[in-house]
């Protein structure tokens, strides 16, 4: 029974990782950018929510509706000021630029808020500790269930938007071939701004979840980036469904590891990540041979 409980807790934890990874996965899928500022931006969102809550004296669930538009605005500035400029410089430049942003954000947050850890747990009442008991040995945290449901709704919603709407088609077309998209009447720059805004809203929701389920401090972004990155890679890069699966696999691995020995929690997740990476490099699309073959295949296919 303890294993079943740990499996269930792992799945719920995976919902949080998937939520944290959604924005990273989306931005990579649309722009082929690995946003190293991802974790720092989530922490920034959490601090924004903290400020709003303190100034207005509202609950984080209300403050969220003010924080998300601010994150959207930050997404616009981030896209036009940094990503758009660095995209044309090859794959390394966006990596370095977003790394620079993460350092900048971390230290600005430290300068303003100091090293104290913060949390929304005291502000959300019984939700932070409330749980539903199933039988004798299984407890489902209400907050974890809420976060899992949010991740599910967000990822399913994004999937539907990408596959069923004209905006989704525009985002996918720009991701596949920006020039061909432009020749079909789309402004790739504008589409990318919209995509970046959407990613930033997802990051905002993830930042709120981070502050509710645990604590955060200015340098907490690095760890969040690593979890998000691992979830994206385990699930397969650029696929939103994969991100959900990847998050759940990471959550299960960590919880199973912790059941064996509490010290094994983190390392179990990393080991699963590395194993999946190795298997993918040998068999999947990440395999170097396949990659080269794909690259070298002539673009003109005979009828």
């Amino acid at each position, binding site marked *: 029974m303890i294993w079943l409980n740990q499996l269930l807790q792992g799945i719920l934890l995976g919902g949080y990782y998937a939520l944290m990874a959604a924005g990273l996965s989306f931005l990579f899928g649309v722009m082929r950018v690995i946003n190293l500022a991802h974790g720092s931006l989530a922490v920034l969102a959490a601090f924004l929510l903290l400020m709003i809550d303190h100034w207005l004296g509202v609950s984080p669930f209300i403050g969220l509706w003010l924080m998300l538009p601010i994150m959207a605005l930050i997404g616009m500035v981030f896209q036009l000021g940094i990503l758009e400029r660095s995209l044309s410089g090859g794959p390394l430049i966006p990596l370095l630029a977003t790394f620079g942003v993460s350092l900048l954000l971390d230290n600005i947050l430290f300068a303003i808020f100091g090293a104290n850890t913060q949390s929304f747990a005291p502000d959300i009442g019984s939700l932070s500790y409330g749980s539903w008991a199933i039988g004798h040995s299984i407890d489902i945290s209400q907050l974890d269930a809420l976060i899992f449901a949010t991740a599910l709704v967000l990822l399913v919603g994004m999937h539907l938007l990408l596959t069923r709407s004209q905006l989704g*088609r525009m985002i996918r*077309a720009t991701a596949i071939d920006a020039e061909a998209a432009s020749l079909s009447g789309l402004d790739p720059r504008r589409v990318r701004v919209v995509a970046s805004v959407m990613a930033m809203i997802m990051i905002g929701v993830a930042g709120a979840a981070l502050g509710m389920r645990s604590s955060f401090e200015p340098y907490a972004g690095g760890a969040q980036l690593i979890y998000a990155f691992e979830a994206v890679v385990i699930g397969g890069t650029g696929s939103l469904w994969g991100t959900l699966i990847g998050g759940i696999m990471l959550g299960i691995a960590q919880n199973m590891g912790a059941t064996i020995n509490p010290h094994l929690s983190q390392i179990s997740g990393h080991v699963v990540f590395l194993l999946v990476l190795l298997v993918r490099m040998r068999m999947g699309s990440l395999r170097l041979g396949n990659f080269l073959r794909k690259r070298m295949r002539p673009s*003109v*296919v005979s*009828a």
Partner: protein
Amino acid sequence: MSLLEVAGLTAGHGLLVACQNISFSLEAGEVLALVGANGAGKTTLLRSLAGAHRPSQGQISFAGANITGLPAHRRTALGIALVPEGRRLFTDMTVLENLQIARAAKRTGDWDLASVLDALPQLKSILTRRAGEISGGQQQATAIGRALMTNPRLLLLDELSLGLSPIAVEGVYAVLPRLIEAGIAIILVEQDLRRAMATAHRLICMLEGQIMVQGPSGSLTREAVTAAYFGLNRQAA
């Protein structure tokens, strides 16, 4: 006033000059064939007209407006559509989605999904298939359909027959008379001289980035164009 006027257009890739001092004009509804050997600068010229390539010199006017500095999507909105070399379809998307995407140009006119499928009936049975999985001829038809969905006044067709089997080429070319009848001006890059001269009202032959010969299709002999194509009698030209 001509629909398209190109004056002194020079474009290149880095130090390489692909086309040099190109000037010509095109009337509404006119069909112009652009012929020339590989590397003559045809594709660069077409891409410069569509806004996918930035020329270093010269001016492009469309319907009386200077469009030289406009990006591709703004030109598409004005009614210029390019069917690019190699098709450049959105391969992970369905044929239907490839067609629908061109609605982003927000141009209304005779061409909608129904009329495009009527003109390209070979697409009807493959609408739900991914564009990366269909045959080359079907891909080319999809690329033409996508361009038509923007309701162009000027259609730029870059080597429609490239990499296609002779039967597939016939299937793709079957749509041309209908487009000409609809009054769309067309610039057609074509390697097949016979086909180019039969289809187009006017012909331009390029060599090494320059126009060697141009004139109405009827007034040019095959020999004259062939000579220009290969750069024979270069002094005379």
